[in-house]
């Protein structure tokens, strides 16, 4: 299982330090180390958003779907995007790499589009979604997270590890 991963890193703290700072150059496949080092935290934050967006969308659809179906469908869509991004970031391999790029790009487009819409025409989406107001209800984390995620994926783009 994945638990073996932990055994592959050197066990003495001194030996681990350089790897924690530059997680990618040592690996044969850079794509395999997306969920390593700072990537651990990125996956974890995505996981929290996946859980909260799913719970919120389920609640909204279960209790008051007819009030604002478009907004609540958007909530559900955002939840699916966060789940996909979390899983894709945590997994190894080229296919999951591009899945995570796609999911996070959609997330960025979503938060920008919904943020702009709620700014230009607040009446169009009267109910709050994760992405309303560029994610201000969540401390603008939904706006920062995809930028951080794409930057992280760029640093771990396929082929980079092979070149080194």
């Amino acid at each position, binding site marked *: 299982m*994945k*638990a073996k*991963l*932990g055994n592959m*890193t050197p066990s003495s*703290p001194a030996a*681990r*330090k350089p*790897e*924690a700072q530059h997680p990618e150059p040592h690996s044969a496949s850079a794509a395999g180390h997306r*969920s*390593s*080092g*700072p*990537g*651990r*935290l990125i*996956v*974890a*934050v995505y*996981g*929290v958003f996946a*859980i909260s967006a799913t*719970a*919120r969308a389920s*609640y*909204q659809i279960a*209790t008051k779907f007819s009030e604002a179906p478009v907004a609540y469908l958007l909530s559900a869509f955002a939840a699916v995007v966060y789940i996909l991004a979390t899983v894709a970031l945590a997994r190894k391999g080229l296919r999951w790499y591009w899945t995570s790029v796609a999911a996070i790009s959609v997330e960025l487009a979503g938060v920008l589009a919904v943020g702009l819409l709620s700014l230009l025409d607040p009446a169009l989406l009267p109910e*709050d979604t994760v992405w309303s107001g560029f994610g201000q209800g969540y401390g603008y984390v939904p706006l920062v997270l995809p930028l951080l995620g794409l930057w992280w994926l760029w640093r771990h783009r396929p082929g980079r590890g092979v070149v080194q």
Partner: protein
Amino acid sequence: MVVDGFFITGAVICVLSSVICIAAAVIRQPPNDITILAVAAVELFLLAYGIAAIFRQLGGEPVAGEAWEFWGYWITALIVPIGAFWWSMLERSRWSNLVLGAVGLTIAVMLVRMEQIWDQAAAL
């Protein structure tokens, strides 16, 4: 939201837990007994909070908001420290301590929401 003993206790435990874990990450420590116990303290608080909530409800102090929403939050909150612990154990680097540090902050936010529901606040 009424700031009661439950909230203050929970907020202090959550913030302390996060500070300990983040400090451990800053001084480049992998997850150790101290940071794991700090996260366990958050989980223990949640268990105590839930058991207390059961007794409060049975004792004629019902949830002012939606009871099932309160318990939904509680069950989700219980999973967060366990999930973070599992994720941090798969790779024991300093970064995993930041994962553990995220637990306290996340639970603090969820505690605020649970307290709001308990005292009846507008639904999401």
